[in-house]
């Protein structure tokens, strides 16, 4: 990309030190994401209590180290619900929603991108028009409007969040598929009589998959932020179910009396999005420098 490469500017020892730090940071990020995945998978075994179980004798109990007891190691909330249990289940719900939504967005975007690249003409114009429309409205506002009109259910909510970000995949897929269509291997396969489906799924997709995976990694933090933001406003995941954003939104009312309710979920959201961003940037630099 640049003619002035970093190695030329910097003495190499300093450069190496920076890379060393970067590799450590990536290592920590991956470890954190692994931990989050494990927590999500084993959430029900990790949680000492049911996440909705009330314990009215221990309401707003402080966590261990702040004068709390071992019964509620991370403290409890206004209804005596165990913060550790809720945190574990919240991580599971938030990650599930994020994965589901990312998948929906990716599948939809990739399909529309391929359709646009294949048919061109008015199909392409319609897809591009939708991309423009989506990009021109802040999605949070659109999402809130849909929630106002349709009410809230978990399925609708996941689908709605899935709609966020499809335009990135559509744009990337369209551009890549169009350039792939010009390349010799695709022309050859086509000449041999392969149907479009076969060409796109068996030949073009594997060749553009790495870029799409990077796109997905870069879109994932946005999905988590959108979900937690909506849930924070009380318009996302509905109680009794809980998610990280819900916990922060609920804990806000006890900010001064029981800050532990929201500190941990806030940290988890921030560290998780941070880790995915770091890993995404690193992947992008490794795999595909053309994306930005």
């Amino acid at each position, binding site marked *: 990309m640049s003619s002035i490469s970093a190695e030329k500017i910097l003495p190499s020892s300093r450069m190496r030190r920076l890379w060393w730090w970067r590799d450590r940071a990536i290592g920590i990020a991956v470890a954190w994401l692994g931990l989050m995945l494990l927590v999500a998978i084993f959430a029900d075994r990790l949680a000492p209590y049911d996440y909705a179980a009330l314990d009215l004798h221990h309401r707003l109990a402080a966590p261990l180290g702040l004068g709390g007891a071992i019964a509620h190691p991370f403290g409890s909330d206004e209804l005596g619900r165990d913060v550790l249990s809720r945190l574990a289940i919240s991580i599971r719900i938030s990650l599930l929603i994020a994965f589901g939504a990312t998948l929906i967005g990716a599948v939809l975007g990739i399909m529309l991108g391929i359709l646009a690249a294949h048919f061109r003409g008015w199909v392409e114009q319609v897809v591009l028009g939708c991309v423009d429309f989506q990009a021109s409205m802040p999605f949070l506002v659109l999402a809130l409007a849909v929630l106002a009109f349709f009410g809230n259910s978990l399925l609708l909510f996941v689908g709605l969040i899935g709609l966020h970000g499809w335009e990135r995949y559509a744009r990337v897929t369209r551009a890549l598929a169009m350039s792939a269509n010009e390349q010799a291997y695709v022309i050859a396969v086509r000449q041999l009589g392969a149907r479009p489906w076969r060409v796109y799924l068996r030949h073009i997709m594997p060749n553009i998959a790495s870029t799409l995976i990077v796109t997905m990694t870069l879109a994932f933090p946005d999905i988590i932020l959108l979900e937690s933001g909506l849930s924070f406003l009380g318009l996302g995941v509905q109680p009794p179910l809980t998610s990280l954003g819900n916990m922060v939104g609920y804990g806000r009312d006890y900010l001064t009396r029981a800050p532990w309710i929201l500190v941990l979920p806030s940290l988890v959201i921030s560290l998780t999005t941070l880790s995915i*961003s770091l890993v995404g940037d690193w992947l992008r630099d490794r795999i595909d420098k053309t994306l930005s």
Partner: protein
Amino acid sequence: MARFIAVRLARALLTIGVVVTFAFVVLRASGDPARALLSPETPAEAVEAFRKAWGLDAPLWVQYARYLFAVVHGDLGQSMRDGRPAITVVAERIPVTLMLTAPALILNLLIGIPAGIYAALKRGSIADRLVMMVAVVGFTVPSFVLGLVFVLAFAVELPWFPSGGAGGWQHLVLPVITLGLGGAAVLARFSRSAMLEILGQPYIRAASAKGVPWPRVVTGHALPNAAIAVLTIVGFMVGNLIAGTVLVESVFSWPGIGSLLVVSVASRDLAVVQCIMLVVAAAMITTNVTIDLLYGMLDPRLRELRSGRR
């Protein structure tokens, strides 16, 4: 140039049309508003009367035509919560929200662009790493978390600023900083990569090679070209800012459009929600058209190109 502006305005009108239609379709697809609003015990004749009063008994295309007619005349229905026209309810919140977003946008630009350009010019240095690290943290920490941290630190622990509500300038400080920092982080990252891209171009090397002093290469060749790229993202930033406002206003109980939207969504006050959507769409479209016109001014190459396309 006239043709360029005409094409842009036509597309803007089309987008408004799409938003209006989207609101209508979503509104009708969401089921019978009479059923949604009235309690299940409401007698059938009362439901009928309600339908008649709101024109819900007419065929769909008639409803659509009436709706379009009403929207064109600025009639966006009444708020079901307090009975006043939705547009009045929304309009009185607009200046309140602008009090937050305008300084936040300025903060975005003032911090984000210089930080990004500085990082690009000092690429690979400790300063560059530091700016980029802060930027990554800045846009991965959700605005509502950042806001709550500020409340805890500067309103509760150190009682310097009020924790919420509207009032004097002190009430503005925490929400504006919360809104401003997130956007500045995005902008810093983007300006850096735009600047790096430009610095790698052959014409920069050519200018350096013929002996133009480096500061003049930067101000005369690199910055104007990077400005075009950075302009692209400002539209996106305004969108982010609006979305951020919804969350930040809620954190700081700021009585602007964002809080109104949240309350209206929660109570399903559809007329107000729809009105807010139109206002946001209008704001976004105005921004994008302005940016496109600025493009035309900044970069004469784009004028003909853009009006020719689509």
